[in-house]
């Protein structure tokens, strides 16, 4: 598994990619909510679908979130070994 070092917001990641959360933006309340549902720094997430809104697999469950919210989550992508 080789990893790409550059950070992108989750809103620009491709569907099907395995990502790790690196940094959160936004106010305290939003960050706390995001962390507590599993978008915590260093957490591994899988972006399942990305058509306007996003669906991610986080902590084993499917979470839906809006594009605006996804802009606040900065991720690093891992190459998915098939």
């Amino acid at each position, binding site marked *: 598994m080789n990893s790409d070092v550059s950070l992108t917001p989750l809103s620009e990641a491709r569907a099907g990619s*395995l990502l790790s959360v690196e940094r959160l933006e936004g*106010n*305290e*309340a*939003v*960050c*706390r*909510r*995001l*962390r*507590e*549902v*599993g978008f*915590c*720094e*260093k*957490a*591994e997430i*899988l972006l*399942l*679908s990305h*058509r*306007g*809104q996003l*669906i991610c*697999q*986080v*902590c*084993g*469950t*499917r*979470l*839906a*979130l*809006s594009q*605006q*919210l996804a802009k606040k989550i900065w991720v690093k992508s891992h190459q*998915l070994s098939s």
Partner: protein
Amino acid sequence: MNRSKYYAVVGNPNSGKTTLFNALTGLRQKVGNYPGVTVEKKAGFFIGQHGEKIELLDLPGSYSLSAHAPDERVTRDVLLGLRNDTPRPERILCVIDASHLERNLYFITQVLELGLPTIVALNMVDLAQAQGRRVNVEKLSQELGVPVIPSQATRKETLLPLKLALSRAEIERSSWSPQLPATLLRAIDGIAAIWPHHEEHSLEPDPLLRMKSLLLLAAPAEDMMLLAEEMNAGKALNIALAQRMMLDRDLPSWREVLVARRYERITTLCQAVQGEGKMTSYSTTHYLDEILTHPCWGWLAFLGIMGLMFLSIFVIASYPMSWIETLFELSSDFIKELMPSGDLRDLFVDGILAGIGGVVTFLPQILILFFFIGLLEETGYMARAAFLMDRVMNKVGLHGKSFIPLLSSYACAIPGIMATRTIENSNDRLVTILVAPLMSCSARLPVYTLMITALFPGNSISIWFKGTIMMGLYLLGTLAALAFAWLFKTTMFPGEHSIFLMELPPYRMPSMSHILLQMIQRASLFLKRAGTVILGISILLWFLVSFPKSSSSSSRESSKSHFYEEVTVTSQKADQLEHSYAGYLGHLIEPIIAPLGFDWKIGIGLIAAQAAREVFISTLAIIYHVQHDEENPSSLSTTLLKETRSTGAPVYTPLTCLSILIFFVLSMQCMSTLAVVRRETNSLRWPLFQFCYMSGAAYLASLLVYQGGMLLGFH
């Protein structure tokens, strides 16, 4: 020994708490396959193995003790003992969804840290097994330090071990901790030490105070004051503020560490008890979502489902409805045979049977509506509908989560308004509450159906077309809700944007017994209403239309023989109605409603409908029964078409029917909804505002339709 035991049932949303609660207590609280079904606490009990009473308190699901939405706050407040109406639980029953262990453990470990005797029910073991995730129960119990009992809440026979555990006299307390860095621990202890508490002598701050301190420390700055007040923090607030400044200096990433440490321990724990999960295996749910959340196919499916729902309400229900109608006609004939004529018989036939029959006829429609809503809730489609609608809701300033309460309001606005408790942002929640009653509820169904039948009499127009008109009315209500949401959002709360974040539960095969049960519950509620409220109003109305007696109404015995006399009797009866108390009331408001095309009899109906919308139907049924020759009863819709104004022109012209329909789509005619809005917003202002804006909009829209129609040459 036989002291009763009191457990709070807590866990993540959709983990099966209410299913378990129902299975244990025999109660029938609402369950459904989407997060946020339960939004209020509910107590129940069962008798334990030693004959003692075991009380359970079902609570709304929660993701974290930080409590971001009002429903989560209910749970937090009960657990922390902040509510005056509920004692703090002595013991806790945690419900975990075994197929989503990692997500569930975040909240559960927070609860364990409260240091109360706790039992963990590892629920949905069937689903975990189906996914090939066998959970090592002993290991999990060891790691958490409390008993863990596998269960499958949907099958009562699997619950015996759990019942035995709940009956135990002594239960372990957990010593689980997220192992925070020393700096953070010092900060928390520092706050807890100052916290005002009752047991003066305890040296070690107790777990409850530490949890309160932790919550206060980690709260967003803008919420700290309020939270401190709610938790009676006293001077501890100042310490918390000071500690935050110190942490910002010594450990700038402390907010992240606070959550990350917990997750790190949970991840290790999960790997130990169930091995590493496969991240990339796509499930059936994934493939279904690829279609149902697709911007094109998803919308087609959504519109298809909604269309099917409203069409079948109209088309399928029409058969059983005609049977019920016949049944009521037969029984009214039967009573006429049985009883001597007189006021008592009139009360039975014209008042009670006509009034109740008018409403009960619509039972099949209501059952079909609830069948569909039950299907949407049980399969997990609700959350997908919210997901799809997020984009539309964004345009009006709300987000997808608001759509679930709106969709529930198709059944009834009251549960819809309760369901807004899952919305985090309080302004979004208020706007959703304000517009929820614009979604056409089941009480409007009878009015819609009757008016559509009067609009297109006979069989000239296909029933499918009438069904489409009905769909149009639902659409109109929905569009009005969205338009007013936009208006309120842009004028009252401009420039605000809230976040959309929602769990999509896995799809499940709907359990038909659940849906049937809900339909039966609904039906009995509806019939109970018919037997109480509508019966009462029907009797009252019959008196109001039959008294005071006008002088010449004693000649009814001879009415059968002569056609000429029959006509006189009818006009005498009309005269009687005109001069009754109800007639007086109707004439009083006639000038206000005449511009909408309504006559004074419709006016009586509108006044009565203020109690509940379906009363409009029973009122019309009573009025026309009293007024007309009762020897050959015909269905209400045919009677309506024969109605004429004093000028001889028919009352129920297509334009009047349309005007009535528009009025009912928009107007606020439900006292119980207003009472719930008052309770949920904790003010009189909002229900009053809601009543005014909805009634105003209804009046204006009907006025526009009727007068506009007249100008265009319709009548």
